[in-house]
């Protein structure tokens, strides 16, 4: 059996018509100028001809032959002394569609698994390798940039009361972090934790607390963000989702990258809501361990935070918030407090809470 095609010698770009025969374990190439070349099949590589409509391209060192008829592959497979799979089997093309569909389903499954478990778990593990000193530097940098020294309320006596709450929460177990709480003179009812141990409480939130126990609940929540390294994990998660998206979408253009950024933000929010739930549960456990009344935390969420929660708790907007709906959080905390509630010792006995709340000098 013989085939027709052409031969490229790899020295000039001239193409020469040729006919091919397989003799034993050799491919015989007869060009029109009368020359015959013999290629041992074991030295031939197939570089094209695996898709419909493609001619077969066979290479040996710098030389190439092009054969339009894929039938030659079947013969080469039969005669190849070893590693037959180097040559594509045209009969296997039928299998390509089902195999591709299977690979597609498996890829989708893997992507979902990474998204739901792999990335959060991986980020948790990776965050453990980030030195706390780096986190502290990062947090300090952000802190200095965000809050003017004039905004920070520095009243040593009242600050000592707040530090005592932190000391009680941390207890004898301690923490690798240098936890520093700063009250900032702004009216918002909010608090935030920076990586490395800095916690910022806004004056508005401090004034909304009715007891040291309520502030302890907020601080416990923020301390959980610090010790669980939520910020560091968020950074790692953000980077790895980007890589995964790039893997799925192939070579993305700038335009497409812009759209995908949206997908990443939604992902980040999902991870963020999970972090909030973790901090709530961990914070409540911290209160119980420190023998501080957990119901004060529940009360603070229910009485102060929930009425401020204007985000609709149904529909799409529920998925576009960094925090879960407060109503859900109160319900979860209530269940936990019932389950875990224990002995309670008073917090800051002998302190006038209304006086501590005036740390910023207001009133």
């Amino acid at each position: 059996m013989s085939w027709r095609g052409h031969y490229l010698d790899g020295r000039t770009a001239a193409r020469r018509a040729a006919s091919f025969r397989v003799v034993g374990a050799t491919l015989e190439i007869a060009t029109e100028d009368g020359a015959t070349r013999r290629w041992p099949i074991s030295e031939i590589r197939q570089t094209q001809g695996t898709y419909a409509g493609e001619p077969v391209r066979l290479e040996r060192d710098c030389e190439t032959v092009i054969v339009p008829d894929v039938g030659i592959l079947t013969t080469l497979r039969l005669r190849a002394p070893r590693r037959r799979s180097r040559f594509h089997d045209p009969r296997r093309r039928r299998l390509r569609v089902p195999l591709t569909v299977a690979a597609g389903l498996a890829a989708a499954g893997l992507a979902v698994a990474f998204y739901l478990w792999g990335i959060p778990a991986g980020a948790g593990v990776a965050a453990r390798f980030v030195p706390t000193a780096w986190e502290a530097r990062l947090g300090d940098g952000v802190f200095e940039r965000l809050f003017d020294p004039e905004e920070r309320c520095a009243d040593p006596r009242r600050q000592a009361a707040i530090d005592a709450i932190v000391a009680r929460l941390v207890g004898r177990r301690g923490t690798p972090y240098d936890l520093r709480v700063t009250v900032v003179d702004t009216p918002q009812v909010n608090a935030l934790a920076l990586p490395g141990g800095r916690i910022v409480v806004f004056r508005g939130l401090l004034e909304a607390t009715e007891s040291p126990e309520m502030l302890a609940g907020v601080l416990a929540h923020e301390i959980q963000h610090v010790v669980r390294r939520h910020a560091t994990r968020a950074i790692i998660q953000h980077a790895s989702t980007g890589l995964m998206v790039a893997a799925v979408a192939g070579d993305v253009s700038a335009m497409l990258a812009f759209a995908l950024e949206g997908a990443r933000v939604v992902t980040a929010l999902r991870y963020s809501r999970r972090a909030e739930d973790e901090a709530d549960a961990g914070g409540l456990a911290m209160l119980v361990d420190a023998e501080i009344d957990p119901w004060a935390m529940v009360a603070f969420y229910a009485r102060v935070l929930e009425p401020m929660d204007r985000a609709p708790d149904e529909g799409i907007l529920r998925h576009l918030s960094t925090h879960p709906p407060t109503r859900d959080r109160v319900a979860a905390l209530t269940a936990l407090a019932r389950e875990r509630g224990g002995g309670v010792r008073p917090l800051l006995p002998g302190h006038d809470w209304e006086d501590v709340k005036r740390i910023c000098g207001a009133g």
Partner: protein
Amino acid sequence: MYGGPQGIGVDGRVGTRARLTFHGRAGSLSGIHVVNVFLTLATLGIYYFRAKARVRAHLYGQMEFDGDRFAFHGTGLEMLLGFVKALVIFGIPFAFLRWGPALLVLEGLPALAMSFAAYWLVTVFIPIARVGSRRYRLGRTSWRGIRFSFRGSTWEYVRLFVTGSALTGLTLGLYYPVFATRSHAFMTRNSWVGSARFDFDGRGRDLYVAYLYAVLLTLPTLGLAWFWFSAARRRYFWNHTSIRGARFRCTITGGRLLRLRLANVLILALTLGLAWPLATVRNARFICRHLALDGDLDAASIRQDPREAAATGEGLLGFLEADLNLG
């Protein structure tokens, strides 16, 4: 001799014309892509480079010029090593300069000096990456068994790029057509296929009319005027590119380019990017449909002239792209 159909060349003389044809289909590329995604995820990203090599080999193999298809010989391992090299000599120093000041809580002069150094690092590495990437890509491409090569000096292009960007900035963009043309001339004149060199005889000033139109019409056309400039630039660049006396001929127009790009954006947006194989095939088909070579190219006189090309540039460009596009 080569056997293209008879046609009339740009200068009116009767000559032969060789066309580019793209045989690729979105179906085959999608199949490759799906399998690539699966293997990339399953190997936690290591397969990414092999995937890239496979896609490129497939695309080049679908492109036919004068009866023969191109071939890409690069491997995933080369690209992986290129990426690692880029990471070590560029990525890590850049990350240190960019985020170091925040981590070390540096303020004032040292922080400023580091941001400045990071800026310079990027300015110098964009041209290095472009040249390296072109060198690798051409060095691993062949047609009729003859390798392409890029022989331009990296530092010459760094100089051209740095002064060109600076002048473009200083003249508020007025220098851009000259810069773009010089940059293109450098890339073209240093490109070879075997012993045949590509030549470019365009001059930047010829692009000024199209450029000024685009600038003036940016607001009234909401920026769409730039498609016409982009088409004019491509036409001009190709029509002034020749090899051994045979000249390229490009028929891209602004309207066609706009239609192609709009349709591609829609396709990608509606499928959340999953249809990129279709968009890629459409792009390749578009370029091949609008490009031909007029004149006699004596293929037998083109001889092999193998040169080595390292894979670093490829990695660098991929790294930069990822950095710029994906944050």
